[in-house]
């Protein structure tokens, strides 16, 4: 049976833009963890390691070969639901991206970002 919440999860939560407490764009809701009975959203899952599971089976196999397996804490992050501040046109988090391990691709401390000509 489909509950109201489940429809909401796909309509308004999955694939939504995530912003941290400073308003920085730090990723998208690539998957959602749902647990318990009655089922509740317990975490947002974020990271490019999760992309293969969003693709049709044949493409997923190819994508996994390119991106490698899901490595939790690296290319796949779990953001507990308690860290979510609210939903508007984005998912707003309570903390800064660094504290949750998000937004590393735009992190000025990362060597590849540090080597860009304008940094």
């Amino acid at each position, binding site marked *: 049976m489909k509950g109201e919440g489940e429809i909401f999860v796909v*309509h*308004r939560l*999955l*694939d*939504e*833009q*995530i912003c941290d407490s400073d308003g*920085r*764009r*730090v*990723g*998208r809701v*690539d998957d959602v963890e749902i647990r318990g009975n009655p089922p509740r959203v317990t975490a947002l899952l*974020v990271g*490019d390691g999760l*992309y293969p599971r*969003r*693709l*049709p089976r044949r*493409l997923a196999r190819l994508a996994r070969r390119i991106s490698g397996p899901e490595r939790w804490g690296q290319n796949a992050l779990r953001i507990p639901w308690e860290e979510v501040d609210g939903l508007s*046109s*984005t998912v707003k988090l309570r903390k800064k991206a660094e504290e949750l391990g998000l*937004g590393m*691709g*735009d992190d*000025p401390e990362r060597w590849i*970002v540090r080597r*860009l000509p*304008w*940094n």
Partner: protein
Amino acid sequence: MRAILKIALGIIAAIGGFLDIGDLVFTTQAGALFRYDLLWAVVLGVIGIAVYAEMSGRVAAVSGRPVFDVIRMRTGFGMGLLALVASTFVNLLTLAAELGGIAIVLELLFDAPYSMFVFAGAIALVGIVALLPFGGIERVFGYGGLLLFVVVATVFHQNPDWGDVAHGFVPTLDSSTLYLYFVVGVFAAALMPYEVHFYSSGAIEEGWTEQNLKENRLNAILGYGIGGILSVGLVIVSGYLFHPIGVEPSDLGTVALPMQGAFGETGLLLALAGMLFCVGGAAVDSSFAASYNLAQFLGWEWGRYQGPKKAPRFTASWLVFLLLGIAIAESGINPVEITEYSVVFSVVALPLTYLPVLLIAGDRSFMSDYANGRIATFLGWLYFAVIVVLALAAIPLLLATNAGGG
């Protein structure tokens, strides 16, 4: 008063920024081959881009979502990725065509080889984008593009048989595949997807909210509408001059010849300079569109307003797309040919980006009171039907006519 002036300046920039190399090539060829018979297709395309731009601008202003945000939300990761790959492919082809166009115009204005000017043009673009804020970039190219109003002056100077011109606005379907190919081309050139990717992201760059909806509507209707007059003018001047003598324009320089015929050296220079700004602006728009789409789809920080330090991946991807565009433009393929392919493939990719915008614009849970009304819903679905038909017809026509080569 200041607010009105600001809106007026925005509209004027939209007018001048309407044309790109696809419009220049397809309207001039359409005029040469079919005289005024395809004017109705130009009008059809202009209304289409106004409808779609207004909708995407409204969605961006009200819900804070640019086009690829909407696409990922509505179609999910898999279909969204398909839309991203298709859009990036056509945006890159378009960028290459515009860079090639810049080089051709520079080659005509100054005497030096084409390949050198591809680099020179691209470096100039990087300089302009690096130095000016977002609004400034739009305006430099938009105002410069207004020089092309010399086309409208040329129409009145030629003083064609106005009855014949009026007749061209009545839709006629000729069964020849070449004619149908140009219907698709003229329509698609007006409705290039990068324009809407750029326009909706620009609304976020400039911090639009519900307060800007009037500005959005005026920009879309007046900006694109008056901009469309330039396309109409290009068909007429080409039809008047080239059709009777059977010239088939195959290079970009031909586009400017009617203006030289009417006003001599001055006409030629105005036309070439106007073309340079139009094509340069479109190169900026299409390269930004490619980076906007990628960043929005993946959830990266993005925007010229953030600056390169806050949005390093967005900025780096823009430079990579520019380099890829240069590589295609330098590959030795004729830019006019790249243009034709970019325009025709665009219409194939268009339904993938058009449908999600149409769905969200009509969704009250996203748009509350600003959702599509009756007119926008009707026009939106009507144009979606037209786009799907043309998308299905585009590739067979491209092959059947050997890309318009007959």
